[in-house]
């Protein structure tokens, strides 16, 4: 870590923290310093040498605050929505004009101590230094009328930085929220964004989140998302984050209440030099829960896709229904797909299965389309769309679906 030196003085600069929090931060910083950036020796990073990536891409790195000049940017016009604007990770403004204001609480994220120590050095780093982000609370019995878009802006002067943010969403009983996390990166430079997300879904609540970006970006993104699901709650996570230079989503879901369901769905198209990694861990801790994972990736030249999925079923979690599928389509010789779909099961009356495939476009299908008068290129595109479409079809709102389809199309056309 010659390019990244950090000491506890950085923690002193963080305002308004208790001694307890300070100690927690210092402890985590020590953990990070001992471990360094993760490399392949970490089981969770089996297929990715992040330390090597950092060394190759950054001559120096720091976590100093950035001053920025943020003027109101153009927002999405495709559909009506509420919004939160984050600039370089910190809460800038919000707008809930479509909703009952007393049902929603929003603030900058504060409390940073009630977290478990982690073996992932990047999470330690986040625990040590995170100071921005938001905390959104939805009160009981409230169903959002419109989708909430979280604009994640990165200003054009972000360079050689590690931004650590912590975001928290809590949905109380019988409430429902749909979120679109929309990343807009204006920086042409390389930087690392390291996010810790904390989600709580109380009884009978619903959360649907969708993750997408505006265009190609040089940023390196790592997000650890921890969700807790109580009785009858329903969590859907849709991932369409194509176009990022490096992106790792580490999703851990604890199914704590009976009859809850957890769905992780992803359709990605990776262009040249892009790296996308999805790691999941679904902990079935009580009976009668459902989890469903469907990850689809199309990989072009020199791109790399990784899927590490784990389903853990505790001995009491009978009648669990868990499904996990990862499929990859390799379009070029230099593309690489690695997967590790894992099952760890201690209960016998369960239905657990997983599948993982990778291969190229079927020549017979191509031939069929070409006999119908399409060019080879058009046929390929059509097959790719067909391959990714079964995930896109999970989006119910037609306007949002169209928006996502267009974004995917932009990616595919760049091929």
């Amino acid at each position, binding site marked *: 870590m010659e390019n990244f030196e950090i000491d506890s003085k950085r923690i002193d600069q963080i305002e308004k923290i208790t001694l307890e929090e300070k100690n927690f931060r210092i402890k985590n910083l020590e953990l990070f310093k001992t471990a360094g950036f993760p490399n392949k020796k970490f*089981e969770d990073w*089996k*297929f990715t040498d992040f330390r090597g990536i950092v060394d190759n891409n950054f001559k120096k790195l720091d976590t100093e605050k950035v001053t920025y000049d943020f003027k109101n940017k153009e927002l999405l016009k495709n559909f009506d929505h509420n919004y939160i604007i984050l600039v370089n990770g910190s809460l800038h403004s919000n707008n809930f004009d479509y909703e009952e204001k007393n049902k929603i609480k929003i603030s900058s994220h504060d409390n940073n101590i009630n977290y478990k120590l982690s073996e992932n050095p990047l999470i330690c780093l986040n625990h040590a230094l995170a100071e921005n982000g938001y905390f959104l609370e939805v009160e009981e019995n409230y169903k959002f009328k419109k989708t909430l878009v979280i604009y994640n802006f990165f200003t054009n002067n972000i360079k050689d930085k590690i931004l650590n943010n912590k975001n928290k969403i809590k949905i109380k009983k019988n409430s429902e929220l749909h979120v679109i996390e929309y990343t807009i990166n204006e920086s042409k430079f390389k930087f690392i964004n390291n996010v810790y997300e904390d989600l709580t879904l109380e009884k009978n609540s619903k959360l649907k989140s969708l993750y997408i970006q505006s265009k190609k970006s040089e940023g390196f993104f790592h997000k650890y998302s921890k969700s807790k699901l109580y009785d009858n709650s329903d969590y859907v996570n849709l991932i369409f984050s194509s176009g990022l230079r490096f992106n790792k989503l580490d999703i851990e879901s604890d199914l704590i209440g009976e009859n809850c369901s957890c769905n992780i769905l992803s359709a990605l198209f990776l262009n040249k030099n892009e790296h996308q990694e999805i790691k999941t861990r679904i902990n079935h801790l009580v009976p009668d829960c459902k989890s469903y994972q469907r990850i689809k990736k199309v990989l072009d030249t020199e791109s790399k896709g990784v899927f590490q999925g784990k389903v853990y079923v505790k*001995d*009491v979690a*009978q009648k669990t229904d868990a499904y996990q599928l990862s499929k*990859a389509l*390799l*379009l*070029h*010789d230099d*593309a*690489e*797909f*690695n*997967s*590790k*779909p*894992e*099952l*760890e*099961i*201690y*209960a*016998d*009356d*369960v*239905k*657990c*299965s*997983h*599948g*993982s*495939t*990778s*291969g*190229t476009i079927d020549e017979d299908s191509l031939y069929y389309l070409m006999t119908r008068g399409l060019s080879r290129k058009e046929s390929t595109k059509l097959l790719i769309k067909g391959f990714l479409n079964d995930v896109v079809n999970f989006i119910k709102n037609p306007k949002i679906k169209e928006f996502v389809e267009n974004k995917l199309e932009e990616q595919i056309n760049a091929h």
Partner: protein
Amino acid sequence: MKQQELEKSKEYKYGFTTDIESVRAPKGLNEDVIKFISNIKKEPEWMLKWRLKAFNRLKNLKEPNWQKPKYPKIDYQDLYYYSAPKSASDKPKNLNEVDPKLIETYKKLGIPLEEQKRLSGIAVDAVFDSVSVATTFKDELTKKGIIFCPISEAIRNHPELVKKYLGSVIPLTDHYFATLNSAVFTDGSFVYIPEGVRCPMELSTYFRINASETGQFERTLIIADKGSYVSYLEGCTAPMRDENQLHAANVELIALDDAEIKYSTVQNWYPGDKDGVGGIYNFVTKRGACRGKNSKISWTQVETGSAITWKYPSCILQGDNSVGEFYSIAITNNHQKADTGTKMIHLGKNTKSKIISKGISAGYADNTYRGLVDINKKASNARNYTQCDSLLMGNKCGAHTVPYIKNKNYSSIVEHEATTSKINEEQLYYCNQRGLNQEEAIGLIVNGFCKEVLQQLPMEFAVEAQKLVGISLEGSVG
């Protein structure tokens, strides 16, 4: 009464341990012990050097610890690395001296009386031994030019072959247990099938003279020259009792152009008692190299014994169009633990591999499938199909699947699927209704579950293995 029973089991357990009279290397692992082994085996200088090289390397290695089943620390200085085969006087005199449970299992498997004696280590009548099939077979093999002998004999008589191939698939420096084996292996089998020869029978350690007591560090080397074929059987369905707790064998297979090796294992070593006390640690390194074009290596294993089974029979598919196969049944009951699977490394063009793994856990057992499929950049048109199914009986046991899949070639296709479930209640009910009791019904259903693998076993094993599947699960349902 209970006390008596205890005495009895003790008697059996220690019935095998030799007295001080037998030739034994002193306890511990050091250069002198290695020299002692090499000397007693009358090995040439180069072999001793090879062993010492491995030993030096071992000093810098650490035991791997990533596996799922954990075990108490092994004190390598507290083990005997060599002890000569026991003399007749040490062995049980007749079947009455053998553990009645063992005899019962033999009967269930349908093993003939004479074989029962042989298996339980009774000094077999010399007449029976001399007319044994083994000798007749040996003549036939010699005629075809097949070399089938203990590896220590091969080191003396066929040094050019051993030098060329030993350690070429599992390098000296591979990992802790493999390197330990390279330093201290005592014996094992050596097979060489000459060019164009199809071995007329299944070769088995069982037929090899002096095959018993190869010790805990066995080394097997099988070379199939161009266009040849051999089927090799390891172990046997009958329960094998052994006083060595640690077994770290190395098996190397080499298939040249158009050659095929079929390697079948039935492992039924002592799994420890119902509470998980005792039992063998089976830490084996098995690896085959498909060096030549169109070559094929097929591993089939039925793992029912041992307290801990930890092995990954692998194929390195170097030759173009080569094929690797892995068929496995791992049954764990009581406190047994298995962490097994395979590695298929695709290097050549048009290489194919197929993995079928069936894991069954009952009682408090843990069963893990861990495998790697690695398609290299140059392995165009490679193809892999993996299927691992697990069956759970009870909620105290565990079934895990940990596959690693790497695909770096766009023209290749990799497929993996896995399921975990319990025995279907309806099927059980149906069997019960037809007059089968619970245990028979489970035996039948499990056999059906394992069918794809059982079919791969050679005739010699197939029938007994089916019975074994049922027997291994006895008492798992209650």
